[in-house]
């Protein structure tokens, strides 16, 4: 610590801190134009100059570190003169356009001109005109307004790591440009909008909000992004019931000001012309729908469901809820199935993504949730990223991974068959054959145990079953592992040593682990890695699933699963069952219900007669959708609650129009177990209702009174019934929310699980043999097909494709194919090809790329025109029944 005087006031600061930081400590305001706490100082704008006693000239306070005994003046006459001169110089080359500029009111240049009373510039007679350029999606430019602060260049370099902007030319000609002035779309830009968010003036702005309103006219509403499990905190700018733009608060976790393209520009779908705005009903699915009023629709649903329950029993009904829904809605859905219908046939769309995480992590550690927080990523020394194309699927989490590597020197081990972007940053890349995860991880375990690199103390005190594990992994020598996985044995050994050699090793994984026949096994294997090296229960360690949709964690926590109530309290545990039966005032069924895929099988077998599907589109996103659709068509009655006419809604008898996440109050729980408030920003469109209201209406009409005035009352009920949520209420969630478990009203939450003991007592080392995928390539279908997400889209595309800015960037699918195969098949990028599996076939354009592993092709599932899931296959996770989206066999031909 050194001590210095600023404007006569004494302050202590670290020697590494700048004068600017020290002044901020004192609450002294120094104007800045090129400074941002996230970026390395550049000293470009000279607005922040101060006078330091004894120094020959004024110094830039943002770039000068403090020293002991320094005497600083931030407001001396020469300082003020310099700043005024600076402003005059900037203004001489700036359009005099505040009257019509969208930035007015937020513009830093304008603000300082006001503060320093600079009315015009001596250095010019005529300010240049403004030069608007709205040719790019998302980002509006006006380079005549650029003051060359360089923040956009630096944030794109340092935070987003995309390096799109550069200073071009020199002298008066200097400007900010993409390489060769290419359109952003062709320059590698990922439209994260970071550059827009830091521009102090109106040179970079959000295109969709141009000319729609000034900052003081908008109401700012905080809410949570629903597009992925990062669950970024959003600030919506709303005027007259319309969202004008989305920004992020630099102080709020988990994203601290960062967003990806979906969070930033995915906010226009709600006003799409084809939003459902009236209940639709019909008697048979071959009839057209007709509009009905709510009363008619609700009583029809209630009557039909009661009829089916009476005729076929409660288990003829199944309910599916969605991770797009709030905790409160998921809670009510499972309450509806259990208390009103009397069945545990309850599931949610986590079944098709992270159900194996719940199964696997519960088996190993006792809790089916991420062990650490996302912020921990930045401080890890070694990161294993397995089966997660993080930069596309969880972009803001990827920023943390890149930061750990680029700025903090972490070592990165990437386990992925595809050459994903993170491979560029990897110390070791284990490019395994799809579906061989368990073998590969057994190989790593083998090396660690053989070389004695395990944490013996931790194993003895906190785990069980090490002997069996040793026996099983003994056979997975590096040679054998190479044979199964295709990964060179040297790399296996290297990766094992790196991970075992740190006390801050963190595992992050995605659906590339879970969507396999041995998905749950894969998760348990990763847990084995963490357990034998003792990398659990401390900061910067643990095993952390990145959840797909934002509320995958929450929908499972809320008991929208066939065997548990909230927070994994078992339905067949007599004490628990009694507790819920009493609370809900009815005898609840104790037999665990059907998982989603089992529901379709029962429907095919004519045993399941009715389904209620809330905000989920399995007819597009389940595997082998031809089967799923034919099962749905056999139902006597299908109710779907949706925003748009999805593939599933097209098969319904009743479609009920609901609200989207901008229109909701409630809570979401992100991948790090952070429960956070959604605040309704815009009114529900006329004719629609909240999902939770609809559930209550149906239940009450069926004779089970369900009434809440507000979602907060639902949360109060959840808290009463769930020890981990006991301390949670809406009031406490304001701000940045709470990380469960929150045991009582004073408990601060639990960012790190399993500190001293595991939820299940001892951590279980599961001894697992490698199980090959269900359907492997053969002579007829020689290629692996893997499916996954793309950066620009979300799920079935029903929301993301309806955002004009996003649609302008990405509007169609491409099948990724390796140049070797492409050459053999005579395929070039842009050619239309036919992809066929044993179950179906589709046509799609090809992209020839080395990103694909030789022998594998890749497709996303976002585009209705490319219904990838007609192809996907028969494989299912052995335990959780999650489809094996990552492996099936296909052939590709030129169409």
């Amino acid at each position: 610590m050194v001590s210095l005087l600023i404007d006569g006031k004494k302050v202590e600061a670290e020697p590494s801190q700048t004068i600017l930081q020290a002044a901020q400590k004192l609450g002294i305001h120094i104007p800045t134009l090129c400074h941002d706490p996230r970026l390395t100082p550049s000293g470009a704008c000279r607005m922040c100059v101060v006078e330091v006693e004894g120094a020959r000239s004024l110094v830039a306070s943002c770039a000068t570190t403090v020293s002991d005994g320094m005497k600083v003046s931030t407001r001396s006459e020469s300082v003020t003169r310099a700043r005024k001169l600076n402003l005059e110089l900037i203004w001489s080359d700036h359009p005099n356009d505040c009257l019509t500029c969208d930035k007015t009111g937020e513009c830093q240049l304008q603000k300082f001109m006001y503060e320093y009373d600079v009315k015009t510039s001596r250095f010019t007679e005529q300010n240049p005109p403004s030069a608007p350029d709205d040719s790019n999606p998302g980002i509006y430019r006006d380079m005549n307004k650029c003051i060359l602060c360089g923040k956009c260049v630096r944030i794109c370099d340092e935070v987003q790591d995309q390096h799109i902007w550069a200073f071009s030319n020199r002298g008066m000609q200097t400007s900010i440009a993409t390489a060769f002035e290419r359109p952003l779309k062709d320059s590698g830009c990922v439209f994260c909008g970071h550059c827009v968010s830091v521009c102090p003036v109106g040179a970079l702005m959000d295109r969709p909000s141009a000319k729609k309103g000034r900052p003081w006219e908008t109401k700012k509403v905080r809410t949570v992004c629903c597009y992925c499990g990062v669950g970024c905190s959003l600030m919506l700018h709303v005027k007259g019931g319309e969202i004008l733009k989305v920004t992020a608060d630099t102080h709020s976790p988990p994203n601290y000001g960062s967003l990806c393209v979906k969070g930033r520009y995915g906010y226009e779908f709600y006003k799409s012309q084809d939003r459902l705005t009236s209940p639709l009903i019909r008697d048979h699915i071959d009839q057209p729908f007709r509009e009905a009023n709510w009363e008619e629709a609700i009583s029809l649903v209630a009557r039909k469901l009661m009829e089916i329950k009476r005729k076929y029993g409660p288990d003829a009904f199944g309910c599916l809820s969605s991770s797009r829904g709030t905790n409160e809605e998921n809670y009510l859905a499972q309450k509806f199935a259990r208390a009103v219908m009397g069945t545990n046939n309850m599931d949610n769309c986590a079944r098709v993504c992270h159900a194996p995480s719940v199964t696997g992590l519960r088996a190993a550690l006792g809790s089916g949730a991420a062990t650490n927080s996302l912020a921990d990523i930045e401080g890890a020394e070694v990161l294993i990223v397995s089966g997660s194309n993080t930069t596309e699927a969880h972009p803001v989490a990827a920023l943390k991974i890149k930061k750990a590597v680029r700025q903090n020197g972490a070592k990165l081990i990437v386990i992925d068959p595809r050459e994903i972007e993170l491979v560029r940053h990897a110390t070791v890349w284990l490019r395994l054959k799809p579906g061989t995860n368990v073998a590969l991880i057994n190989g790593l375990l083998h090396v660690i145990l053989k070389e004695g690199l395990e944490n013996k103390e931790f194993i003895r005190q906190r785990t069980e079953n090490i002997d069996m594990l040793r026996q099983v992994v003994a056979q997975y020598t590096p040679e054998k592992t190479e044979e199964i996985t295709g990964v060179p044995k040297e790399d296996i050994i290297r990766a094992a040593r790196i991970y075992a050699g740190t006390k801050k090793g963190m595992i992050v994984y995605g659906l590339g682990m879970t969507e396999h026949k041995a998905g749950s096994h894969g998760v348990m294997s990763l847990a084995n890695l963490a357990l034998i090296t003792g990398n659990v229960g401390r900061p910067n360690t643990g095993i952390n699933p990145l959840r797909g949709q934002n509320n995958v964690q929450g929908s499972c926590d809320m008991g929208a699963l066939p065997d548990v109530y909230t927070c994994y309290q078992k339905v067949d545990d007599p004490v628990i069952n009694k507790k819920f039966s009493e609370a809900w005032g009815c005898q609840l069924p104790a037999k665990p219900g059907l998982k989603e895929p089992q529901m379709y099988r029962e429907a095919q077998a004519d045993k399941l007669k009715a389904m209620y599907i809330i905000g989920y589109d399995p007819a597009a996103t389940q595997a082998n959708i031809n089967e799923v659709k034919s099962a749905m068509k056999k139902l006597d009655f299908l109710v779907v609650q949706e925003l748009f006419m999805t593939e599933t809604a097209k098969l319904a008898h009743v479609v009920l129009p609901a609200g989207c996440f901008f229109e909701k109050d409630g809570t979401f729980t992100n991948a790090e177990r952070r429960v956070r408030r959604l605040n309704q920003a815009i009114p529900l469109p006329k004719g629609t209702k909240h999902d939770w209201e609809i559930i209550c209406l149906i239940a009450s009409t069926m004779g089970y009174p369900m009434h809440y005035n507000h979602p907060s009352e639902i949360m109060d009920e959840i808290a009463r019934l769930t020890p981990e949520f006991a301390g949670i209420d809406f009031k406490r969630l304001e701000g940045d929310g709470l990380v469960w478990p929150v045991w009582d009203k004073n408990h601060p939450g639990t960012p790190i699980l399993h500190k001293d003991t595991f939820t299940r007592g001892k951590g279980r080392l599961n001894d697992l043999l490698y199980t090959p995928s269900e359907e492997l390539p053969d002579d007829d279908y020689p290629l692996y097909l893997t499916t996954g997400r793309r950066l620009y889209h979300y799920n079935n595309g029903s929301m993301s494709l309806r955002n004009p800015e996003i649609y302008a960037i990405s509007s169609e699918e491409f099948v990724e194919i390796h140049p070797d195969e492409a050459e053999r098949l005579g395929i070039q990028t842009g050619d239309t090809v036919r992809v066929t599996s044993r179950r179906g076939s589709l046509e799609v354009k090809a992209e020839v790329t080395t990103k694909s592993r030789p022998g594998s092709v890749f497709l996303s599932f976002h585009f209705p025109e490319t219904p990838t899931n007609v192809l996907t296959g028969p494989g299912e996770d052995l335990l959780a029944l999650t489809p094996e989206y990552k492996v099936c066999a296909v052939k590709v031909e030129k169409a």
Partner: protein
Amino acid sequence: MNKKMQKNQESPDIELQKLEDYIDKFHTKFDNSDIIPILQFVQDIYGYLPCDALEFVSKKTHIPLSRIYGISTFYAHFSFVPRGKYTIKVCIGTACHVRGAEKVNAKLEELLNIKNGETTADYKFTLESVGCVGTCALGPIVVVGTSKKSEACCGGPLKSGRNVSLGDKFHGQVTPENIEEIINKYQGETDE
């Protein structure tokens, strides 16, 4: 947007082998200080900076294309458009102007069948104008550059020809009549 990068996009197919060999001779980890020598090499072998070559450099070195572009535009020395083997610079400084530089330029445009600023189809000549080159007494002046780095000397007034690249030749008291002969001399030279 700066004029000199407006075209550039459709660069003719280029041979990258030489460039690859050159870059491979460097190290494996590149930083910004490597950019200029590489750009210099690119300009030397192609006569300008072809877009494809810069993309190739970016891919090989992992230096972002935007940064390479930024540096290329910073130095007037680098050019994004293919240039002729000889750059003909017509001085249009005041002294040369009053002595008829305009007519010389017009004659050159006619002879070469290009406009000032353009390059002949056979990539033999690029015609440019330049501010006072400091030898007004002998005006009108035409400078013919044999070097590829021709632009280095036309950024502004030169003092006593000090910065003129090697291979630049000054021609004084040029007239529409004698310019043809001068050009023919270069025209006749065979490629090495």
